[in-house]
């Protein structure tokens, strides 16, 4: 796209392409005086030598191939190593289906929670001034800098049998650790910056004038939110949701600590992959892994589409 715009001003004489080709060489007279000082051929500061370009591109492509394409291809070939039937048999195994369901459930819960929390927090940060605002901004980023294992441990410490609320929870027959609630909580913890981070800069840039205009035109607070605020942030919100969802489905560390690894009950897809692999069920492990890989590819495509939309807004 970009190159089209760059070359457009060069169309001095469209009938003689030879001229435009020789254009990049600027003012030969001046060049000759420089050429006396500079050895052999001229060096254009804006362009590297072909062999440099080749090496740079080759390194980048090789790196991508080695670290992204090769593993992905490996996952797919291993998954189908024993044929299509074995692949689908592995995926329809009751324990694996349970893991898929649990993963979807945990991701759905964390997406909903993060959308609600994210919009509220972004609204507060972008549109109000209050003391402690900077602290809140710093805290929102915390999950990115804390190891997921520690995030998981925090919940064990709070709700585990030896934890602060463990005794009370046991007495009231509420199960959090080694069950869906803890898995959801850990997932929410590791994913909650995604939505807020997308929304805050956008909402700050948009300001509050449109909302004020809506209020003065007689709209209620709720109407203003749904008709003015939400449409203005919807693409950024979807983008945040996508990133949040991708991370939620792939989360391993935090979930691993709180899950308890009960087959068919508290294993999410990443944990299921680990369990299968440890049990030498290589094909099944790769089959589940291939699902996660496909999810990643779909996420990537949706991400590109959303980015284009965001750009346009």
């Amino acid at each position: 796209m970009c190159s089209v715009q760059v070359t457009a001003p060069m169309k001095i004489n469209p009938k003689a392409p030879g001229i435009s080709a020789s254009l990049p060489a600027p003012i030969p007279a001046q060049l000759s005086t420089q050429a006396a000082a500079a050895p052999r051929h001229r060096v254009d500061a804006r362009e590297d030598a072909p062999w440099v370009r080749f090496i740079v591109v080759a390194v980048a492509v090789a790196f991508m191939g080695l670290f992204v394409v090769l593993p992905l291809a490996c996952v797919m070939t291993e998954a189908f190593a024993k044929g299509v039937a074995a692949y689908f048999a592995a995926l329809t195994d009751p324990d694996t289906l349970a893991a898929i369901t649990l993963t979807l459930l945990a991701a759905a819960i964390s997406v909903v929670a993060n959308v609600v929390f994210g919009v509220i927090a972004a609204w507060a940060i972008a549109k109000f001034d209050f003391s402690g605002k900077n602290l809140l901004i710093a805290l929102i980023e915390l999950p990115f800098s804390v190891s997921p294992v520690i995030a998981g441990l925090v919940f064990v410490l709070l709700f585990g049998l030896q934890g602060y609320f463990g005794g009370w929870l046991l007495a009231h027959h509420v199960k959090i650790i080694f069950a869906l609630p803890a898995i959801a909580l850990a997932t929410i913890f590791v994913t909650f910056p995604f939505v807020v981070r997308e929304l805050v800069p956008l909402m700050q840039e948009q300001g509050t004038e449109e909302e004020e205009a809506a209020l003065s035109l007689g709209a209620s607070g709720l109407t203003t939110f749904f008709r003015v605020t939400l449409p203005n942030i919807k693409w950024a919100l979807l983008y945040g949701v996508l990133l949040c969802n991708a991370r939620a489905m792939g989360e391993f560390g935090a979930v691993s600590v709180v899950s308890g690894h009960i087959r068919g009950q508290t294993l999410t897809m990443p944990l299921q992959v680990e369990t299968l692999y440890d049990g030498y069920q290589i094909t099944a492990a790769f089959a589940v892994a291939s699902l996660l890989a496909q999810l990643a590819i779909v996420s990537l495509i949706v991400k590109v589409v959303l980015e284009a939309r965001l750009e346009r807004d």
Partner: protein
Amino acid sequence: MKISIADVSKRFGAFAALDRVNLEVRSGELLALLGPSGSGKTTLLRIIAGLDWPDEGQVLFDGEDALARSAGERHVGLVFQHYALFRHMTVFENIAFGLRVRPRRARPSEAEIRARVQKLLGLVQLGWLADRYPNQLSGGQRQRIALARALAIGPRLLLLDEPFGALDAKVRKELRRWLRDLHSEMHVTSIFVTHDQEEAMEVADRVVVMDKGRIEQVGMPQQVYEQPRTPFVHEFIGESIMLPVVVLNNTVHFEGRPIGVDAQGAPDGVATLFARPFNMTILRDAASDSLHGEVRGIHGIGPARRIDVALGGTQTVIEIDAPRSHNCAIGQLLYLRPAQYQLFPSEF
């Protein structure tokens, strides 16, 4: 609608944005709130609109307490400096917004909404833009759509916050004349905020000059310009020559010598003499009781010329306007006397 503002104060932390402001806005008039940034004019507008609440004081709409009502309940049309059009809605939907969000019982039918919006689009002369989005419009067009949107709710009062502030000079001039005409057609009480004195003078019926959260003067444009009540107003509106003088026995002294003007009843003591550059008369003959100084520069084209005069021993340089017919040269000594002036005793 008549608006009474009584003893309204508003503080932001230690900063007094409004300090016991009193103002009566007459029904149907076009009033300008004029002042430098930080003078409190926008805060006052936002309080009237219902987007901010004062710490103290009263705001009455036709004798009714407006502060008891939310922004939406006040039926006030609001126009922002940066338009604040709903960016994801078409021009048509922007204008229709105020009608569509009404409670079901008060909401006009779709056909009525359509007719109303078309009429407003005609009023702002932008009928062909109905299906465009705000970002496809020029600044001037956006501001006219913003005005149409504000008028759609049939406002009792129209508030405009620096409505031409974001537009370029030519469009600004066009649009303010257009606003003037529109107002004289519709007669809806309107208040607009501006820091541009020329704009306030040209458009408004009356001008409110504000500074540091207080109202300095309220009056017709001519009145504010010709009879400024405070030094601030004199300095802020139009060009001013300011001379530090001393009043003694009803005569005015500059640099220890009388300058031949009456003190207009100002008390003895230190004062400042304010005059307009075109109100300085150049005396034909040397006079000891006058201002005198050396011509430092002559510039300008057109009917009048601007002359820089360095006065007496203090080297205070003042700029005066002289008719083109007046011949003078750099280095020449001029004797001056203000034909019209005002004296404000210094506050210390």
